């Protein structure tokens, strides 16, 4: 089927009230969650996931994508108004956004953040539509050895989410790989760490692990130190963004969008580096470079374009190869699986209509983001005022209901609390949680493809080097590791 055929088959799936409502609610939830300091886009996507069970797959996934996009933009609101990035991706926005707010230009900065986000978002979506299908058709020729090497390379994305200490990130990933082995053996069906408990035979529940790692530790951290946020919310000010100002920043927005698309399509880099690179490039090329850091509108535009340019592009490896580009897309891959869909090249053949419906939904979401974002900017004062002693018990109850709803099983709630305790230990000791989750998702795929390859070759490892594709992925993995080691040596 051609792209046009696919798009016409997909249109009825999106052109209905449920899908529009899902996108609208998703974006609203995302913007609100991103705007609340202490919440994050990741936590919002994780908590929304259980609410998608009752929905059609396309509606549920559109809801999650709405939360993702809304969350990334929402993070810029507290970054500008209270100098507290709602998400790590908004850290670069603080540099010029908050100085603008101090000058009474918060409204202008926020409007620019919104326009830059939406423009870069459209660019990112177009890149997804153009490249995902092409990459998927190429990946159709992959067998287990190729997928094994691809997933091994993808595990190097852990380097991107490990923080300053790669070893702690790798340890976190090793724990994730270990917990992914709980259940029944993939080939022989024998017990592995399941203590003969029927609740563990299918492995640990993904949602329980996810929510346990990302939401419960935040609650425990607040219980450890229940203090309200300090600092005041800046007013929006009377100045509004003019078309002339948007036009002046357009070049930086487009450049930032491209940077976001390129970095987003590479697994593991994420939105924060894209925002900082976009910001530094804008500064380097700007006529007003001396104003950067003191409240330059172009700085806000560039950083927001950089982080939102990533959103659609991270879905390229997810949809085309079945490999998550970052933590949030790792959660979304779980949502696909829960709805009986397996992202990857075969999905373009078996569920092409759903893929293209997602593309259409993403384009619509850029328009909705503009509307929801404009309202959220004005309502931020009320969002920021939600007291944490009310918010965090609310999150706790949402976690409990959400995790229970997956399998109608109280045991899963226990798993979530156990993972929460582990997550809090990791938080206290500086071990990042993101590598754990990525390894937990990729672990079974890695092992499955490895063992399939071994079955094909009768146990000979040479099959893992059988084609130029495997060589390319081995080379990329080696280059990534060598770069990381070199970087480490230079820092030393």
């Amino acid at each position, binding site marked *: 089927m051609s792209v046009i055929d696919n798009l016409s088959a997909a249109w009825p799936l999106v052109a209905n009230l449920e899908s529009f409502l899902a996108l609208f609610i998703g974006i609203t939830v995302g913007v609100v969650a991103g705007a609340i300091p202490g919440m994050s886009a990741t936590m919002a996507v994780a908590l929304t996931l259980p609410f998608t069970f009752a929905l059609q797959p396309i509606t549920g996934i559109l809801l999650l994508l709405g939360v993702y996009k809304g969350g990334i933009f929402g993070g810029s609101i507290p970054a500008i108004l209270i100098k507290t990035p709602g998400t790590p991706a908004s850290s670069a926005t603080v540099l010029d956004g908050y100085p603008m707010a101090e000058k009474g230009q918060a409204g202008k900065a926020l409007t620019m953040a919104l326009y830059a986000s939406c423009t870069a978002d459209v660019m990112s979506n177009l890149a997804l539509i153009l490249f995902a299908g092409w990459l998927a058709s190429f990946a159709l020729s992959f067998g287990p050895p190729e997928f094994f090497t691809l997933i091994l390379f993808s595990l190097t994305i852990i380097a991107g989410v490990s923080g300053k200490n790669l070893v702690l990130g790798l340890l976190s990933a090793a724990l994730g790989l270990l917990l992914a082995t709980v259940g029944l053996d993939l080939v022989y069906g024998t017990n592995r760490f399941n203590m003969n408990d029927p609740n563990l035979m299918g492995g640990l529940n993904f949602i329980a692990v996810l929510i346990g790692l990302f939401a419960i530790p935040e609650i425990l951290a607040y219980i450890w130190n229940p203090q309200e946020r300090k600092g005041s919310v800046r007013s929006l000010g009377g100045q509004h963004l003019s078309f002339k100002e948007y036009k002046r920043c357009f070049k930086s927005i487009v450049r930032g969008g491209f940077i976001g698309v390129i970095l987003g399509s590479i697994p593991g880099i994420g939105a924060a580096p894209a925002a900082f690179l976009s910001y530094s490039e804008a500064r380097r090329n700007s006529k007003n470079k001396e104003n950067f850091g003191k409240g330059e509108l172009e700085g806000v535009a560039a950083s927001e374009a950089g982080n939102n340019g990533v959103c659609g592009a991270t879905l390229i490896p997810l949809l085309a190869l079945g490999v998550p580009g970052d933590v949030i897309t790792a959660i979304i891959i779980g949502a696909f699986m829960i709805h009986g869909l397996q992202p990857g090249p075969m999905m373009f053949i078996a569920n092409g209509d759903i893929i293209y419906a997602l593309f259409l939904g993403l384009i619509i979401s850029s328009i909705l983001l503009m509307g929801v974002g404009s309202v959220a900017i004005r309502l931020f004062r009320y969002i920021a005022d939600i007291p944490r002693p009310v918010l965090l*018990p609310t999150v706790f109850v949402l976690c409990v209901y959400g995790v229970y709803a997956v399998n109608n099983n109280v045991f899963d709630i226990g798993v979530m609390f156990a993972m929460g305790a582990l997550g809090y230990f990791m938080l206290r000791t500086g071990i990042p949680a993101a590598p754990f989750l990525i390894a937990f998702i990729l672990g079974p795929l890695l092992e499955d493809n490895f063992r399939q390859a071994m079955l094909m070759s009768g146990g000979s490892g040479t099959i893992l080097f059988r084609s130029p594709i495997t060589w390319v992925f081995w080379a990329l993995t080696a280059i990534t590791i060598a770069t990381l080691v070199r970087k480490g040596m230079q820092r030393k």
Partner: protein
Amino acid sequence: MMQNSRISPLGLVFIGFGAFILLVAIPYAVTSPSNVQKIVLAPTFWPTIIGWIIIGLGAILMAMRFFVPADWSSNDADAGDGTPLPGGWLRLAAAGALMVALVYVTPILGLVWTAMLCFVALSLLVKSSRPVVSLIVAIALPLALYVFFHHAAGVAVPQGEFIRLP
């Protein structure tokens, strides 16, 4: 921020954990059929590799104490804002007890009532400055979620042995 002095014991913890995986957990909790021809296909192969990786990384973590500057060898451990209030461990222990209680009490009281009680208990634990708002949300939220999950999503929310909801 976690200093190198804390990195080193953490490395030791992971070495110990890896050894536990290899020496205790795999032999006792992973069943491998006797007719496995190739070791790479055995159910124990993957967990063994991971066990060794954990030991290796634990050793590297310990070695980092001597070779790597403190600011690089640690990640920021963000466990809360500012100077912590006293009684943190006590509150954490109470939260842990609350979580364990939730798992055991839910089949008896039902999820809705247990969630309400947990909300109130958590609000007391963090000394909510807005008790009335907390109480309203504590009642309304579990009920709203019950309506959504039970009636809209078709989830069999546990009702408990005492008060059953429609």
